[in-house]
């Protein structure tokens, strides 16, 4: 969907390093969600950040939301090989009960 888009198609880091995935969106939103999809599986939610929040954490994950620039980031610290996955941002809009996904960023964490 063009309503949300990750800014990188692929990223590669080594274990222990930090990495940030960026997302931009094109319309007013009520919340933004980050999902992770491991190979052969369906996506699973990592973080939901509402439009009145600027930052949300979940363990090694930190999401930010900047509604003025219509952008979000997902940072992962102390990466592990098991963080290797495709990461999606997805936007929620008022009056809609659907999520619009970006095309995803493929993250590879190498030993």
């Amino acid at each position, binding site marked *: *969907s063009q309503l949300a888009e990750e800014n990188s198609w692929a990223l590669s880091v080594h274990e222990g390093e930090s990495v940030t995935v960026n997302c931009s969106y094109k319309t007013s939103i009520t*919340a933004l*969600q980050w*999902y992770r999809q491991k190979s*052969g*599986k*369906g*996506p*699973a*939610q990592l973080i*939901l950040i509402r439009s009145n929040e600027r930052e949300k954490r979940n363990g090694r994950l930190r999401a930010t939301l900047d509604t003025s620039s219509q952008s979000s980031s997902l940072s992962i610290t102390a990466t592990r090989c098991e963080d290797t996955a495709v990461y*999606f941002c*997805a936007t*929620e809009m008022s009056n809609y*009960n*659907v*999520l*619009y*996904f*970006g*095309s*995803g960023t493929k993250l590879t964490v190498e030993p």
Partner: protein
Amino acid sequence: EAAVTQSPRNKVAVTGGKVTLSCNQTNNHNNMYWYRQDTGHGLRLIHYSYGAGSTEKGDIPDGYKASRPSQENFSLILELATPSQTSVYFCASVPGGENTLYFGAGTRLSVL
């Protein structure tokens, strides 16, 4: 954790044939969704449902029908399958009062 079960996991169909993809959830979730995933396009919404008897069109409904005969079951139907419908299809459900999608493991469909 909410469980969403898709069947079949893999399907090979012939062009012009009818294909039915099934999705079942026993979490009593109201909303259910069908997405397809293609390289470079991410997840695109095909149809969704607010509950038994309801179906709504998503972004790319052409060539697809949906059926929600019960709270638990949501099917995606390709009446006349075409090679362009070769993709991985994901079903998801959402609990009432929140917007977290719980996805099934996907169905890989090849239309030859």
